[in-house]
């Protein structure tokens, strides 16, 4: 399984509220499916950040690959001002799209991977998003203008609970406590649920063993098993 690696030119960078949208010109890189991820590093490499950053695409096709980035440290800051970006991927397992209706649940920067998923699952979808501020919530427009949006301290599980039982599949991405709460709610109502999880990664392709997450009750590499997991595999671990 050869790893695919490219240096892609930056097409545009724009502020989307509190987040930064980084759009790369695609140059023949296979884009994979929503929920898979790429390792990104500014090219030439930034002096202040040694490791690449693991990000799932906001959307991707043969023309462009877009990432919604929460600029927090040196690595993401370098990406936001880069003219080229080195990209390895797609990596890991993405969402297994199921036929029928769906509910997309996003929390904070977890919403970054939902625009592509929303386009892929089609019209029979509802979207529930939670953010810590109005500025962070502006990116909801990229996903679905009709999304239900809640702001801190309201949790996404409140509107989601009112939708239960959902006929169809729940797809969620966000902080761990949110994912566990969504998974528990879905399990209670016997609703199939897939979680896109997050962990710090050095490599993204199974080499470093850094991204350990409790999966099936034991520490496993998220980059190999996930990052999208059937919720039961995570719930069983608790």
């Amino acid at each position, binding site marked *: 399984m050869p*790893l695919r690696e490219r240096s892609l030119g930056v097409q545009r960078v724009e502020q989307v509220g509190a987040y930064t949208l980084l759009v790369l010109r695609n140059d023949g890189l296979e884009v994979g499916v929503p929920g898979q991820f790429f390792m990104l590093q500014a090219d030439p490499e930034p002096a*202040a950040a*040694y*490791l690449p950053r693991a990000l799932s695409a906001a959307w991707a096709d043969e023309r462009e690959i877009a990432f919604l980035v929460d600029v927090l440290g040196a690595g993401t800051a370098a990406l936001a001002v880069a003219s080229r970006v080195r990209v390895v991927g797609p990596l890991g397992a993405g969402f297994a799209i199921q036929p029928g209706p769906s509910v997309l649940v996003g929390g904070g920067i977890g919403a970054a991977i939902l625009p592509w998923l929303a386009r892929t699952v089609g019209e029979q979808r509802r979207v529930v998003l939670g953010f810590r501020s109005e500025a962070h919530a502006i990116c909801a427009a990229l996903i679905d203008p009709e999304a239900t949006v809640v702001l801190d301290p309201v949790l996404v599980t409140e509107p989601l609970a009112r939708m239960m039982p959902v006929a169809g599949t729940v797809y969620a991405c966000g902080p761990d406590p949110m994912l566990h709460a969504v998974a528990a709610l879905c399990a209670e109502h016997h609703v199939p649920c897939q979680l896109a999880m997050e*962990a*710090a990664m050095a490599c993204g392709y199974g*080499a470093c063993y*850094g991204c*350990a997450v409790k999966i099936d009750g034991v*520490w496993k590499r998220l980059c190999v098993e996930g990052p999208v997991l059937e919720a039961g595999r995570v719930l069983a671990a608790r």
Partner: protein
Amino acid sequence: MSSLHADLCGIPLAHPLVNGSGTLDALAAGTLGLAAFVTKTVTLNPRAGNPPPRIAETPSGMVNSIGLANPGLERFCADHLPRLGELGVPVVVSVGGWSHDEYAEAVRRVSADPATAAVELNVSCPNVETGCISIGTDPDETRALVELCRSLTDLPVFAKLSPSVADVAVIATAAAEGGADGLVLVNTVRGIAIHRDTLRPLLGGGGGGLSGPAIKPVALHAVHASYAATGLPIVGMGGLANTQDCIEMLAAGATAVGLGTALFRDPGLPSRIVAELPSELGRRGFPDVAAVRGIAHQIDTEAQPELDGLQR
């Protein structure tokens, strides 16, 4: 164009680049063009590894606390080793343990499989409380362990040493006295990362091992000192990130060079170095890789005037 062939204790290598133990899962990602594959350290019993977070980025490198996560000797031999034998490159199996008996059992078992080309004794993991690291900090323990393991296999035995000791040459000498065929230097340097907000240790295992370009001078020194002390074949590693780094490591005394953390950020690196190395060695007048080895130890008065030009 210079030849890249290397001979590591009788193991022919197409070129001098291998991976550091624990920095590649060849079953998941292939061998990335490396000339040999070194496994993640296997221990008698399966280990889940340390709780996350397991990695932290630091200036010019990273600190890790993986904790020797591995499937255990039984499953490794039954399931992993046969598949590793099909990779098409020599396989060096890295073993660890909490007693001499555990190392001995691992050496016996992995040596019985035709897929194993050599054995690496990891006596230098910084991420476990006892066992591996404590053996590698004590010359007498190191000598005794190497001697025992040397007697249990016909394959080349390497000792993987830590730079986090007072004098690495003392440990290297002890390994040589115990009969080690070669050395692997260096494992990660003991380090710790503090969370910038909580001011508590960032990694789940508390401390960890520092790797990446930050430790390159430490690694070069350890290889330089161990080559001078023992003359043994050495797989030199620690912060190597490009062709120039690899040549410097050979000059310090390495027979082959290991890439580790650099693979995480750049899986295409081995192929690029292998492509650059022949012309880079040729440009400097070296006919092959062996000709570079240890050249940093030669006091070459003829070359001084040119280098001294800036200082005058």
